[in-house]
């Protein structure tokens, strides 16, 4: 049985991204209305808006949380060619005893000359580090040398990929490698019908202390819209899910005895055309065992691996019409104008949605 909980986001234009913090207890949303909103879940499970502010002078494309070890930190990127770092500050408590919270802009990263399309914090073991990519095809790495001082975010590296970039993802740590190089995969949504690769791997070289593009994955030639490495969980290889003209899962296995060249073998672990059209988003669950893909068909599909074979374990479809309150399969109760609960299906039968 699935219980759904609907929250009115109150954005005045399209929502572009929804990001949850490490524990899934805080939610950040961003929109074309240039606002970012933060929602907190209370002990009863209700989501309350805790902050809303105008973050940029253009559409805010992505919002992302830093690991809570660094504090309550958000990064956003926007059409206004900037990315920004935000920190939540707690003020004096009010008369009611609740602390006043607000978000302050700690840094404004203005190096890009075009729209910044994606922003992601690196794994926490690399420190407080941030990667952005932009429509002019440049991937940039920023780093706060002092994690207690969020005002300093010097630009550390720039890698030019020469084709409009749309998304990026950091590698998780592998269990077998003692300390693998930092790696970022960058995707391009250039749709000029070229057959060039649309997926690049950039790596940090310990010797030259520089980031550089080390590989272009030739098999990915359609525009890439989203991409994400699976959480590692003791695997000895990387799994990279790609949203392009279909869903693709690449397996990157480290080659141990190589000295030159790209030290990974790349193979396609799975490829699905079930959406029958462009795929916009991909997301892994926390154990990296179930992938959720969202396509132009309006569906969200769930994929699970059982011993190297991937299969669809569930489909979510949208429906613009609200169910009748008395209908058998769903019940809805209006709590207030912000939230609405309803139950989807009551029958527990062998083939119900199992997405765990």
């Amino acid at each position: 049985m699935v219980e759904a909980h609907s929250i009115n986001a109150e954005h005045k234009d399209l929502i572009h991204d929804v990001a949850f913090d490490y524990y899934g207890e805080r939610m950040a949303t961003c929109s074309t209305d240039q606002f970012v909103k933060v929602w907190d879940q209370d002990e009863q499970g209700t989501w309350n808006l805790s902050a809303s502010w105008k973050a940029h002078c253009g559409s805010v494309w992505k919002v992302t949380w830093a690991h809570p070890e660094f504090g309550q930190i958000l990064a956003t990127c926007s059409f206004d060619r900037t990315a920004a770092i935000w920190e939540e500050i707690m003020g004096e408590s009010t008369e009611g005893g609740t602390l006043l919270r607000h978000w302050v802009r700690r840094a404004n990263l203005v190096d890009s000359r075009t729209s910044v399309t994606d922003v992601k914090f690196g794994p926490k073991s690399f420190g407080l580090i941030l990667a952005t990519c932009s429509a002019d095809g440049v991937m940039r790495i920023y780093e706060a040398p002092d994690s207690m001082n969020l005002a300093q975010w010097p630009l550390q590296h720039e890698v030019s990929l020469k084709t409009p970039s749309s998304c990026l993802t950091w590698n998780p740590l592998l269990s077998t490698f003692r300390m693998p190089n930092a790696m970022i995969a960058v995707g391009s949504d250039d749709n000029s019908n070229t057959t060039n690769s649309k997926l690049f791997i950039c790596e940090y070289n310990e010797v030259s202390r520089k980031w550089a593009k080390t590989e272009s994955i030739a098999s990915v030639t359609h525009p890439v819209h989203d991409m994400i490495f699976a959480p590692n969980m003791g695997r000895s290889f990387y799994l990279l899910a790609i949203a392009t003209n279909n869903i693709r899962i690449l397996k990157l296995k480290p080659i141990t005895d190589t000295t030159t060249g790209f030290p990974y073998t790349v193979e396609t672990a799975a490829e699905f055309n079930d959406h029958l059209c462009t795929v916009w988003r991909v997301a892994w669950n926390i154990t990296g065992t179930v992938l959720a893909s969202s396509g132009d068909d309006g569906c969200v599909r769930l994929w699970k691996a059982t011993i190297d074979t991937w299969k669809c374990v569930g489909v979510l479809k949208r429906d613009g019409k609200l169910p009748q309150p008395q209908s058998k399969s769903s019940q809805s109760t209006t709590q207030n104008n912000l939230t609405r609960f309803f139950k989807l299906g009551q029958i527990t039968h062998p083939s119900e949605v199992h997405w765990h």
Partner: protein
Amino acid sequence: MKKTLIYETLTIPDPSFNDDQVKMIGTWHGMNNICAFPTKISRKTTSKTSVKNVDNTERNIILLKHKSMLFDPKVRQLVNESSSLFQELQINVEDQNKSTDALYYSRKYRAILSTCIIAIERHNKDKLDEIYNQYELLLRNLELIWHLCEVLYLVTVPGDTILNNLLDWIKIHYEKAENQASMIIDDKTAYFTDECVEDKFPFYWDTIFGLVLQGNTDLVRALLFNHSQSKTEPFIQAMKIFKSMPTYSIYGGLPIAEYTSRFKGWQSNAKNKLECGIFLNDPNLQDLMKIICGEPDCTNLIRKHCSTWFEYLVAQLIYTDPTVKKHNLSLYAHRSVTNYYKESEYNHMDTLALDLFDGDLEAFVKKLKSYPDSGWSSTHLTNLLHLCDKIEPEFGISDATKNSNPNEQYLLDYGTFLMTHHSLWQAGITYLDNCSDVGKEYLSVLLSKLGITSHLRTTKILHYATSRRLHNVVSSICKVKGMLSLQKSRLGEALFWAIRGQDSAFATRLGDIFLKEFVSSGQFSCPDILENLGSIVLTCDRFMFIGKYLEFMKLVKQSKLSEASSLYIDLLRSNICPKYFRLRLLLDVLMFIDDTNECYFKTSEVALVTMRLDDAIVEYEEINGECTDECLSDQICNIRRGIVKLLSISFR
């Protein structure tokens, strides 16, 4: 065979999706929940916002939560009790001195199941709650299939004559006839008055048929005796036949061949009487006798009195092949199921039972995985079967190097699943603990993802992580807690977490805040915590300094100036004082000038103070440039004056 649905479609109704252009984007949140939000996809370069008319489109974010039966408060005891039994079983297996009694554990698991069923039943007496009705049905079916598995695979039967075990199985799960029978027998009024039992209880004959089909001849005789016509010839004859029915007992010492011939003799005797027409007057008795004679034309009759094909199968075996061997069951089972069902639509239970009768445990275990109990049964039963060597560990595994054990995959899935629940996570740990290396990786990720809002819970998580040597989890949680405290400006609490996590880098940061606060306000906050720093002074330089400095302050307060002076010189000499605090430390030299003009420093020590002062001034200028503010230059002058005075005293 059954059409197997590969996946289920869930429709999400929301006005946000009114416009067909609006796509639904799905993402994960928390442990195991899905979030869906509406958006339109447009070319990013064209979407510079123009201030449009007021936009009233609803944009809802939909959070989906998976609710499993196991999360229900009434079913939770099943999870908790089975996890401790599971743990007991694993320990038992490791103990070489003890033999693992699989049957014992299987029965215990079933006992937990039936306790849970009873609890649900009690809670839902009037059967009005549809959800609990379903849960009860699910668990009952599970118990039935588990018991069948136990009877077929865990109970050892000499000679493989399985019928008695199957009868035990059927009797426990289909007790309707027996309950009705005792109701009839217990009713004494019919006995004392002249009321006819068969008229008073309309289910009288159904009960007798039910009992006959479970081979319960003693009760059948008792019921027949209560019949108003029991003194008539047909009834006396029938009771006689039932009384003389030979029963096979493994330990009765009768060889199978001997028993079979006796059974045949008994049946032909009954058949003779039937053919003589003794029972013609009473059609019910006539049918009854046909059944026990194993007449092939009474299958429909049997079918009518059986609620499932399990009963049907066993009922037929009693009177046609009472010494049936285990390996012949498959044929009978398939025959029964095709006879029983009009259409060939089998449900999940049927296929599970057929796999068991076929002896295909591997297929059974795989199918059990999709039983809608979130993996409870497949985890525990597979584990049990695996531990008593009933299933080979390597089936169906291609990535043999990684998870060499399908059982382990089940444990991983089930353990992970439990860990996503806010109160069952501790039970989940039990399962992940039994999953070699991968389990540890899962544990460290899942433990550190558990919410740490309540103090009790955080303490528990830290306890589990510490006892499993997951030090990275401990330090990560402590750092997060510390940062949250710091955000609320609770310095003492933050320091507590830094000490708890042995995080010297974080402690250094906090030490700096303490010292800077001291510079500006002249006193330390949270003196009680600073009094009891513990081992952090050994691992963190900053707190070594703070500890020593506090000791110094204490000595000054107690006017033990000579001891204070040597500590002061130690502090200057060791150079562990942070740069921003050096001038403040040097200012303390003034405390050694009092009216008594006592000498606390040797000349060489005063020279050290001077040297440090010069260094500090240079450093200060390096950092802040040339502009020294007035207050500071006043201080420097004061310190210099103090040094001169101390020097003059020391020369005396």
